[in-house]
């Protein structure tokens, strides 16, 4: 049995100190298996993004452990590996905005993720093209982001996230800027990626119309994660 895509245990994140102390995460634990897509829901300020950024290794917790692909990565604020190198080798990111680099074409936006991970330019180009084709935007490869629709941009962002075959993909409200049809297409895409490419996918979302694509849903409230029972019908929280 392979190691989980990600496992966080007893995460706690505190901003400030004394009278200004704010507890963003109280005690959060979560495991996402490879090939599993998990939806994370919760009201604004509940701590979803803080958990996501802790798992993304860009906002270390005050305490708790983060393990990715079976490797201990963070022990509280202490990095146990080179975080930047670990990110480029094992993590993929998709955001509310596609965050494509505006001076690079769609193809180059994917290619750059491969090149920073030491893939030779020619191979990186071929792999980037393959991913764009896989996500149905191959014919827009030569376009700058400004010439792409919101849905196309988000597909390119997904292709970039997939570029280095990450064990974990983290998505922060990836459909917020899309209409319902495009939003659903993107969510289905994540599910396809999780199942076909054996990656763990965590999606923070407010979009309740697409919750059926998740294998599992967790709710975040007051800095704690609550597993939603599989039998519980999908509904607005």
């Amino acid at each position, binding site marked *: 049995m392979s190691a989980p895509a990600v496992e966080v245990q007893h995460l706690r994140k505190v901003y400030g100190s004394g009278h200004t102390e704010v507890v963003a995460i109280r005690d959060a634990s979560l495991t996402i298996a490879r090939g599993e897509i998990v939806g994370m829901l919760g009201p604004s300020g509940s701590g979803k993004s803080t958990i996501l950024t802790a798992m*993304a290794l860009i906002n270390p917790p005050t305490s708790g452990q983060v393990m990715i692909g079976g490797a201990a990565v963070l022990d509280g604020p202490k990095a146990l590996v080179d975080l*930047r190198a670990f990110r480029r080798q094992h993590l993929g990111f998709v*955001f509310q905005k596609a965050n494509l680099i505006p*001076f*690079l074409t769609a193809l*180059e936006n994917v290619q*750059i*993720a491969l090149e920073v*991970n030491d893939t030779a330019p020619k191979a*990186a180009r071929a792999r980037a093209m393959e991913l764009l084709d896989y996500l149905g935007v191959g014919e827009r490869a030569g376009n700058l982001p400004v010439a792409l629709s919101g849905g196309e941009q988000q597909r390119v962002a997904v292709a970039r996230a997939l570029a280095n075959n990450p064990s974990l993909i983290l998505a922060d409200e990836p459909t917020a800027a899309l209409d319902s049809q495009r939003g659903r297409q993107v969510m289905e895409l994540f599910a396809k990626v999780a199942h076909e490419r054996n990656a763990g996918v965590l999606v923070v979302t407010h979009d309740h119309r697409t919750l059926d694509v998740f294998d599992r849903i967790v709710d975040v409230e007051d800095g704690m994660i609550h597993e939603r029972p599989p039998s519980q019908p999908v509904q607005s929280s």
Partner: protein
Amino acid sequence: MNLAVRDIRHNSGRFVFTTLGIGLLLMIVMGMGGIYRGLIYEATLLVDRVGADLWVVQGGTRGPFAEVSRISASLEDRVRAVPGVANARRFVSHTIQRVHQGRPLRMVVQGLSWPEDRGGWIPLVAGRALRQAHYEMIADLSLHLPLGEKVRLGKDVYEVVGHTRGMVGTSGDGLTFFTVSDALAIQSDVPGEAVRLERAARRARLEDIEIGRLQPLLLDRAAGPSGSIPALSKPQVSAVLVTLQPGADAAAVRATLSNWPDISVFSTQEQKDLLLSGMVDKAKRQLGLFRVLLIIISTIIIALIIYTLTLDKIRDIALLKLIGARNGVIGGLILQQSLLMGAFGYALAWVIGQFTFPHFPRLVVVERSDLMSLGFIVLVISTLASLLGIWKALRVEPNTVLSA
């Protein structure tokens, strides 16, 4: 993948206009260096071309390029008698400004020691050397005097018979070549009324003393032309140029001449050094200071533009960090942009300079060594200018990309 080039392509308008500005600044830096080189070239041109081994000048002075030097024209004959001397020529040099065809005409008048020196050493681009002892001149093209042009200088009219190109004096005025006697006539020309007044004054002074009252013929002689009065010296020249015999011991000749108390002797190199340590040295410092200021300004402009380009890319840089790009990739992006800006600016400066420098009123000489030095300076300032942007980029947190 070269991120720098792609970003520049994306921001091509800003890059082009900034590079154009940098290019113009660097062209001025390049031009100022060229003007300094031109000053040296122009200042030493005559000393180099005239082909003298030694310069004999008025005792206690540093020669005609440093101050007024007056020596007797007959010194030429005394110098010729020194063993080891092959040839001695009178040298006259002074600057005049007259009006010709309604426009000011400023020129450096050089006297050639006719008939030994007819200007055969002068590099003519048109016309010929002097063929007669009077009323002919060779003029530099910068004076805009066509061949055959008649120019009135003093009481006489001189015809332009030859042209030089780029032969100017230390002040940038075109050189003209006459025979020494014509050069002296131009130098000592005074209005007729002044001549008459001087003659009357001589007569009056003589009448005040006894010999004048007792010898009426003396009064008549004194009131005549100055050239017919034995007591008055002939017009003086600025220097005597000495050419040594092949294989002659220059030090021995110089030692002999140095024993004469009425003159000073300088080698050609010493005359050049005197020129360069005087006026040219001050110009060098002046231009040098301007160049330093312009280079500092260029550095600041490049730094600010690179910094603002970096600020525009903060989210992109944060994203690059988030996906794991090394600092080298991010720093390289900024450094390469800065270097490209400097390189294109430098190339632009060179190209614009090729077209504009020839139209400058003073000679601009851009030497290969100066180009290489400036290229190195541009490399350094471009690198320095990128530091601010790199510093900013390296401080960006990857989670900046998550902020709205």
